[in-house]
Protein backbone atom coordinates (compact mmCIF):
# COMPACT_ATOMS: atom_id res chain seq x y z
CA UNK A 1 0.00 0.00 0.00
CA UNK A 2 2.81 2.34 0.92
CA UNK A 3 4.63 1.43 -2.27
CA UNK A 4 1.53 2.22 -4.34
CA UNK A 5 1.15 5.61 -2.65
CA UNK A 6 4.78 6.49 -3.22
CA UNK A 7 4.55 5.42 -6.87
CA UNK A 8 1.44 7.54 -7.37
CA UNK A 9 3.03 10.58 -5.75
CA UNK A 10 6.16 10.13 -7.88
CA UNK A 11 4.01 9.95 -11.02
CA UNK A 12 2.10 13.09 -10.01
CA UNK A 13 5.37 14.92 -9.29
CA UNK A 14 6.74 13.87 -12.68
CA UNK A 15 3.55 15.01 -14.44
CA UNK A 16 3.66 18.36 -12.63
CA UNK A 17 7.33 18.80 -13.56
CA UNK A 18 6.65 18.01 -17.23
CA UNK A 19 3.64 20.36 -17.27
CA UNK A 20 5.59 23.21 -15.71
CA UNK A 21 8.49 22.63 -18.13
CA UNK A 22 6.09 22.90 -21.09
CA UNK A 23 4.58 26.18 -19.86
CA UNK A 24 5.81 29.40 -21.36
CA UNK A 25 6.79 32.29 -19.16
CA UNK A 26 6.37 36.00 -19.70
CA UNK A 27 9.57 37.67 -18.60
CA UNK A 28 9.28 41.35 -17.62
CA UNK A 29 12.44 43.32 -16.89
CA UNK A 30 12.74 46.88 -15.65
CA UNK A 31 15.79 48.37 -17.34
CA UNK A 32 17.47 51.72 -16.83
CA UNK A 33 18.87 53.37 -19.94
CA UNK A 34 21.79 55.73 -19.49
CA UNK A 35 24.27 57.56 -21.61
CA UNK A 36 27.28 55.53 -20.50
CA UNK A 37 28.14 52.16 -21.98
CA UNK A 38 27.58 49.87 -19.00
CA UNK A 39 25.44 46.87 -19.93
CA UNK A 40 24.23 44.28 -17.41
CA UNK A 41 25.20 40.75 -18.48
CA UNK A 42 22.21 39.12 -20.15
CA UNK A 43 20.95 42.41 -21.57
CA UNK A 44 23.37 42.59 -24.49
CA UNK A 45 20.72 41.87 -27.13
CA UNK A 46 18.35 44.46 -25.61
CA UNK A 47 21.20 47.00 -25.44
CA UNK A 48 21.97 46.38 -29.11
CA UNK A 49 18.35 47.10 -30.04
CA UNK A 50 18.36 50.27 -27.91
CA UNK A 51 21.65 51.50 -29.37
CA UNK A 52 20.41 51.01 -32.92
CA UNK A 53 17.26 53.04 -32.35
CA UNK A 54 17.67 55.40 -29.38
CA UNK A 55 20.45 57.68 -28.10
CA UNK A 56 21.28 55.47 -25.09
CA UNK A 57 24.30 53.23 -24.67
CA UNK A 58 23.95 51.96 -21.10
CA UNK A 59 21.47 49.27 -20.19
CA UNK A 60 21.23 48.25 -16.52
CA UNK A 61 18.84 45.75 -15.02
CA UNK A 62 16.85 47.29 -12.16
CA UNK A 63 14.36 44.52 -11.42
CA UNK A 64 12.97 41.40 -13.01
CA UNK A 65 9.65 39.58 -12.60
CA UNK A 66 7.76 36.94 -14.53
CA UNK A 67 4.49 35.13 -14.83
CA UNK A 68 3.17 32.02 -16.55
CA UNK A 69 1.56 32.38 -19.98
CA UNK A 70 -1.32 32.96 -20.54
CA UNK A 71 -0.61 35.93 -18.33
CA UNK A 72 -2.92 37.11 -15.60
CA UNK A 73 -0.78 38.80 -12.98
CA UNK A 74 0.18 42.07 -11.39
CA UNK A 75 3.93 42.35 -10.93
CA UNK A 76 5.51 44.78 -8.49
CA UNK A 77 8.86 46.37 -9.37
CA UNK A 78 11.38 48.57 -7.63
CA UNK A 79 10.67 52.29 -7.83
CA UNK A 80 6.94 51.90 -7.17
CA UNK A 81 6.11 50.45 -10.58
CA UNK A 82 3.43 47.81 -11.06
CA UNK A 83 2.86 46.01 -14.33
CA UNK A 84 -0.42 44.20 -14.89
CA UNK A 85 -0.35 41.59 -17.63
CA UNK A 86 -3.45 39.85 -18.90
CA UNK A 87 -3.67 37.63 -21.97
CA UNK A 88 -6.71 38.31 -24.12
CA UNK A 89 -7.35 37.02 -27.67
CA UNK A 90 -3.71 36.09 -28.23
CA UNK A 91 -2.39 39.52 -27.18
CA UNK A 92 -1.17 40.58 -23.76
CA UNK A 93 -2.82 43.62 -22.24
CA UNK A 94 -0.16 45.55 -20.33
CA UNK A 95 -0.88 48.32 -17.84
CA UNK A 96 2.06 50.14 -16.26
CA UNK A 97 1.50 52.19 -13.14
CA UNK A 98 3.82 54.12 -10.89
CA UNK A 99 2.70 54.83 -7.33
CA UNK A 100 -0.81 53.75 -8.41
CA UNK A 101 -0.96 56.33 -11.19
CA UNK A 102 -1.45 55.13 -14.74
CA UNK A 103 1.56 55.66 -16.96
CA UNK A 104 0.65 53.58 -19.95
CA UNK A 105 -1.79 50.95 -21.10
CA UNK A 106 -1.35 48.92 -24.25
CA UNK A 107 -1.85 45.52 -25.86
CA UNK A 108 1.20 43.70 -27.19
CA UNK A 109 1.59 40.65 -29.39
CA UNK A 110 4.72 38.75 -28.42
CA UNK A 111 6.39 36.79 -31.21
CA UNK A 112 8.69 33.93 -30.23
CA UNK A 113 11.51 35.45 -28.18
CA UNK A 114 11.45 38.88 -29.83
CA UNK A 115 11.29 41.53 -27.10
CA UNK A 116 8.81 44.37 -26.87
CA UNK A 117 10.27 47.43 -25.15
CA UNK A 118 7.91 49.89 -23.53
CA UNK A 119 8.99 53.00 -21.72
CA UNK A 120 10.84 56.23 -21.73
CA UNK A 121 9.75 57.00 -18.17
CA UNK A 122 11.88 59.22 -15.97
CA UNK A 123 14.77 57.12 -14.65
CA UNK A 124 15.77 59.27 -11.69
CA UNK A 125 19.32 60.22 -12.63
CA UNK A 126 19.79 63.02 -15.14
CA UNK A 127 18.91 61.85 -18.59
CA UNK A 128 18.26 58.26 -17.51
CA UNK A 129 15.09 56.53 -18.62
CA UNK A 130 13.21 53.46 -17.46
CA UNK A 131 11.86 50.91 -19.90
CA UNK A 132 10.13 47.58 -19.47
CA UNK A 133 11.30 44.70 -21.63
CA UNK A 134 8.64 42.07 -22.22
CA UNK A 135 9.74 38.78 -23.67
CA UNK A 136 8.43 35.24 -23.85
CA UNK A 137 10.80 32.61 -22.54
CA UNK A 138 10.41 28.87 -23.26
Amino acid sequence: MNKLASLLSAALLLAATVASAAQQMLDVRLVKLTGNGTVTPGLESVAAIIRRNLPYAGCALVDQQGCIMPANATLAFKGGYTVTCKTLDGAVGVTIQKNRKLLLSTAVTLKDDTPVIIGGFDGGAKGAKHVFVLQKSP
Partner: protein
Amino acid sequence: MNDDTLKSLLRASAPPVALRSADAFWSAVERQAQVPGRAPAIPRRLGLTANLLRRWQAPAWAAAAAAAALVAAVVWPGAHAPALDQFRIGDELPNNGALVITDSDTDATILWVITEET
Protein backbone atom coordinates in the same frame (compact mmCIF):
# COMPACT_ATOMS: atom_id res chain seq x y z
CA MET B 1 -8.81 -25.15 -108.25
CA ASN B 2 -9.26 -25.08 -104.59
CA ASP B 3 -8.77 -22.16 -102.20
CA ASP B 4 -5.29 -23.11 -101.09
CA THR B 5 -3.99 -23.24 -104.65
CA LEU B 6 -5.62 -19.88 -105.36
CA LYS B 7 -3.97 -18.27 -102.30
CA SER B 8 -0.53 -19.63 -103.19
CA LEU B 9 -0.87 -18.31 -106.73
CA LEU B 10 -1.92 -14.88 -105.46
CA ARG B 11 1.05 -14.76 -103.03
CA ALA B 12 3.43 -15.72 -105.82
CA SER B 13 2.14 -13.01 -108.16
CA ALA B 14 1.97 -10.21 -105.50
CA PRO B 15 4.95 -7.77 -105.41
CA PRO B 16 7.14 -8.00 -102.34
CA VAL B 17 6.19 -5.48 -99.59
CA ALA B 18 8.92 -3.95 -97.50
CA LEU B 19 7.92 -3.82 -93.84
CA ARG B 20 8.83 -0.67 -91.84
CA SER B 21 9.51 -0.55 -88.18
CA ALA B 22 7.28 1.59 -85.92
CA ASP B 23 10.14 4.08 -85.30
CA ALA B 24 10.64 4.56 -89.01
CA PHE B 25 6.90 5.11 -89.50
CA TRP B 26 6.68 7.82 -86.78
CA SER B 27 9.85 9.48 -88.00
CA ALA B 28 8.24 9.80 -91.39
CA VAL B 29 5.07 11.23 -89.81
CA GLU B 30 7.10 13.82 -87.87
CA ARG B 31 9.08 14.78 -90.99
CA GLN B 32 5.82 15.21 -92.86
CA ALA B 33 4.40 17.36 -90.07
CA GLN B 34 7.36 19.73 -90.27
CA VAL B 35 6.78 20.48 -93.91
CA PRO B 36 5.49 24.08 -94.15
CA GLY B 37 1.98 24.56 -95.40
CA ARG B 38 0.73 21.21 -94.26
CA ALA B 39 -1.44 20.61 -91.27
CA PRO B 40 0.72 18.67 -88.85
CA ALA B 41 -1.23 16.17 -86.82
CA ILE B 42 0.94 15.48 -83.76
CA PRO B 43 2.64 18.90 -83.33
CA ARG B 44 -0.74 20.55 -83.44
CA ARG B 45 -1.79 18.60 -80.38
CA LEU B 46 1.47 19.46 -78.68
CA GLY B 47 0.96 23.11 -79.58
CA LEU B 48 -2.47 23.08 -78.06
CA THR B 49 -1.06 21.70 -74.80
CA ALA B 50 1.74 24.28 -74.80
CA ASN B 51 -0.78 27.09 -75.37
CA LEU B 52 -2.90 25.84 -72.53
CA LEU B 53 0.13 25.73 -70.24
CA ARG B 54 1.17 29.23 -71.29
CA ARG B 55 -2.34 30.54 -70.79
CA TRP B 56 -2.92 29.05 -67.36
CA GLN B 57 0.60 29.28 -65.95
CA ALA B 58 0.22 32.76 -64.41
CA PRO B 59 -3.24 32.14 -62.88
CA ALA B 60 -1.97 28.80 -61.52
CA TRP B 61 1.01 30.46 -59.86
CA ALA B 62 -1.24 33.20 -58.45
CA ALA B 63 -3.65 30.62 -57.05
CA ALA B 64 -0.75 28.67 -55.50
CA ALA B 65 0.62 31.84 -53.88
CA ALA B 66 -2.82 32.76 -52.52
CA ALA B 67 -3.26 29.24 -51.11
CA ALA B 68 0.19 29.42 -49.47
CA ALA B 69 -0.65 32.80 -47.92
CA LEU B 70 -3.94 31.42 -46.63
CA VAL B 71 -2.23 28.39 -45.10
CA ALA B 72 0.42 30.62 -43.52
CA ALA B 73 -2.27 32.89 -42.06
CA VAL B 74 -4.06 29.89 -40.57
CA VAL B 75 -0.94 28.14 -39.28
CA TRP B 76 0.84 31.27 -38.01
CA PRO B 77 -1.96 33.72 -37.20
CA GLY B 78 0.36 36.18 -35.43
CA ALA B 79 3.15 36.06 -37.96
CA HIS B 80 2.39 39.43 -39.52
CA ALA B 81 0.39 40.99 -36.74
CA PRO B 82 1.82 44.25 -35.37
CA ALA B 83 3.43 43.87 -31.95
CA LEU B 84 1.52 46.84 -30.57
CA ASP B 85 -2.17 47.07 -31.29
CA GLN B 86 -3.00 50.26 -29.43
CA PHE B 87 -1.84 52.27 -26.43
CA ARG B 88 -3.08 54.87 -24.01
CA ILE B 89 -0.84 57.17 -22.02
CA GLY B 90 -1.95 58.07 -18.51
CA ASP B 91 -3.08 61.61 -17.79
CA GLU B 92 -0.58 61.85 -14.95
CA LEU B 93 2.39 61.36 -17.25
CA PRO B 94 3.63 64.65 -18.71
CA ASN B 95 4.20 63.68 -22.30
CA ASN B 96 4.32 64.97 -25.81
CA GLY B 97 3.20 61.75 -27.41
CA ALA B 98 4.78 58.45 -28.17
CA LEU B 99 6.85 56.83 -30.86
CA VAL B 100 6.57 53.25 -32.09
CA ILE B 101 9.89 51.99 -33.45
CA THR B 102 10.47 48.64 -35.14
CA ASP B 103 14.06 47.43 -35.04
CA SER B 104 15.00 46.40 -38.55
CA ASP B 105 17.48 43.72 -37.45
CA THR B 106 15.36 41.83 -34.90
CA ASP B 107 11.79 43.01 -35.63
CA ALA B 108 11.59 44.05 -31.97
CA THR B 109 9.15 46.83 -31.17
CA ILE B 110 9.84 49.85 -28.97
CA LEU B 111 7.04 52.02 -27.64
CA TRP B 112 8.85 55.15 -26.53
CA VAL B 113 6.93 57.77 -24.57
CA ILE B 114 8.24 61.24 -25.28
CA THR B 115 8.01 63.04 -21.96
CA GLU B 116 8.43 66.73 -21.38
CA GLU B 117 11.98 66.24 -20.11
CA THR B 118 13.04 64.21 -23.16
